[in-house]
């Protein structure tokens, strides 16, 4: 097995695509010389030059806005937001929601804006505390903007393949990277707890299409739809659940927009039960949308109410005991599944 860090897989995708397509450029804070806060753009400036991999000032509005302009001018920019929490800074939100996402549509299809925005999300609990402004999961915000694709890989293999698709496509993509995944396989605590973090990443080029979910674990009794880090927590929960005679199926959508509704619905039709596990906070989160889809398309097959496992509706607290209580853990998944099984 060729095991790569998530950040190394991202790096490899960027590297291979940049070698193939000279129009791909990267910019963001600390991405150039430093190689990115999480090493995702390591050595890319060295190998592709400063005109293609640039450090920017702290100017999120300019970063995204310039990416939009560069795309209109024929480049294929990869703009990095240092943390997804910064998406609200300095006009970035306007550039993403009002410009980037809408241009193709509001200009009648006469332009394409192939920008990939990469941003780390999520809590690093129990390894480190990012507190309220550096730990959020905001992917649901962008599911709600028509014109944006939203990608949420859970493994290095998925990350590389999905990023390649993002880079080759002509649509704006919000590529969300859970920061705990970046080095997970190098940290013994995480690696031992979640062996599913380790996977084979082929060196050859490959692309994973959007809108294609991946069943990370087949099962019989409950469909557990999980994203990013929650995929691994769900699989870990499944071991405990199997001792109670409950066999869950873990479905990883891999992309939220487009969402592989067919795979999700097919699974729920088989199991009759659904639990959605995502790290964002509960209200109007990822789970709310997926639950609605299941209700609409598989209502007659449901043998139990749909449950959501998500973070509490609180800003992420700094103190680890509180942070651990605020975000979803294996125990919460187990409680939810056992609750609808009645055992």
């Amino acid at each position, binding site marked *: 097995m060729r095991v790569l860090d998530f950040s190394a897989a991202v790096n490899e995708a960027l590297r291979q695509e940049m070698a193939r397509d000279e129009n791909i450029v990267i910019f963001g*804070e*600390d991405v*150039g*010389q*430093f190689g990115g*806060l999480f090493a995702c753009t390591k050595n890319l400036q060295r190998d592709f030059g400063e005109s293609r991999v640039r*450090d*920017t*000032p*702290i*100017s*999120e*509005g*300019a970063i995204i806005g310039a990416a939009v302009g560069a795309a209109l001018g024929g480049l294929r920019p990869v703009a990095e937001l240092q943390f997804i*929490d*910064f998406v609200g*800074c*300095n*006009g970035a939100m306007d550039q993403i929601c009002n410009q980037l996402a809408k241009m193709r549509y509001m200009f009648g299809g006469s332009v394409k804006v192939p920008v990939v925005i990469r941003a780390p999300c999520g809590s690093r609990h129990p390894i*480190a*505390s*990012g*507190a*309220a*402004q*550096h730990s959020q999961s905001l992917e649901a915000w962008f599911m709600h903007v028509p014109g944006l694709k939203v990608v949420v890989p859970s493994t290095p293999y998925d990350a590389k393949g999905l990023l390649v698709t993002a880079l080759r496509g002509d649509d704006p993509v919000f590529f969300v990277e859970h920061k705990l995944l970046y080095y997970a396989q190098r940290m013994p605590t995480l690696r031992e707890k979640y062996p599913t973090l380790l996977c084979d990443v082929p060196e050859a080029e490959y692309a994973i299409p959007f809108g294609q979910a991946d069943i990370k674990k087949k099962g019989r009794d409950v469909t557990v739809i999980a994203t990013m880090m929650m995929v691994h927590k769900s699989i870990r929960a499944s071991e405990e659940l199997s001792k109670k005679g409950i066999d869950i199926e873990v479905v990883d959508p891999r992309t939220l927009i487009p969402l592989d509704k067919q795979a999700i619905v097919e699974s729920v039709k088989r199991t009759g039960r659904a639990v959605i596990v995502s790290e964002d906070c509960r209200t109007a989160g990822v789970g709310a949308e997926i639950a609605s889809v299941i209700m609409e398309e598989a209502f007659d097959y449901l043998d139990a109410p749909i449950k959501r496992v998500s973070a*509490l*509706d*609180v*800003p992420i*607290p*700094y*103190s*680890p*005991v*509180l942070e*651990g*209580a*605020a975000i979803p853990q294996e125990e919460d998944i187990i409680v939810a599944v056992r609750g609808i099984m009645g055992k």
Partner: protein
Amino acid sequence: MSGNFADLPKEKLAEIYEKMVRIRKFEETAGSLFAQGLIPGLIHLYIGEEAVAVGVCSSLARDDYVVSTHRGHGHCIAKGGNVRKMMAELLGKETGYSKGRGGSMHMIAPEIGVMGSSGIVGAGIPIAAGLGWATDVKKTKRVVACFFGDGASNTGTFHEGLNLSAVWKLPVVFVCENNLYAISVPIKKSTAVENVADRAVAYGMPGIIVDGMDVIAVYKTAREAVQRARSGEGPSLIECKTYRFRGHFEGDPKGGGVYRSGEEMVEWHKKCPITMFQSKLVQSKIFTKDEMEEIEQKCITEIREAAEFAKNSPYPSTGEVTKNVFAYEA
């Protein structure tokens, strides 16, 4: 502005020196606690920049406001913050300033005017403007000191915050702590002007450059700007040329040595604001070496006790994790 302190009373000089030492000891202890794995989050240490916070805050009254940043321990201590509550906050304990909910980057101490630090670069600038507006409306004559770094001077919020303060003539002193780097990116690669203070003209306010390693120079410059603000003449932009002796955050490889040259770091270390001030004070015979050491010991003891207090304090109860999302719980 020169760092001539002959005109300042001894008590003031002692206060200034003690605050810088307190900051230094606090930060060193925080760094060591981090190395022991006792601090769950990331910390951004103020070591090397003490003269800026102390110089500015020594010119403020107790109920004047301070808006701080991710590198905010220095601001809080300089404004009179309680080191036990600060240390407890770093460890995520219930007894911390933010009851463990905020951590290093989200400290607050409203009783001494420290109105919160933010991890979002530049976010504090318009907030400082707002505080200034409130004091105008309420006619309290309070002044706001707004700290931010060189990186923040390139944000959109810098432009909007300074412009608004100038147009409304708000009582804000904008203090740019130019330590030459925004994480790894040097100012030459990110900023279109040589000096951040050069931008003041775009906002119709005075822009002053000062040696950020000279605490008295900072103090005197700030004092003038505070006076301007309090008398209703509007905001000023002070740029302090300074340097952080450690990495951007604890854990920054080689203490920031990946993106800063060894020679540069050595050069700046020679300009330690505390050492320089201390030797000047001793040389001028205002203080003896023993008196200096006494102050240092006092700080060491204080910080050591603060660390013990923090370690022995309880963690927050998970039953209260949803408390304070709103004013009144549903």
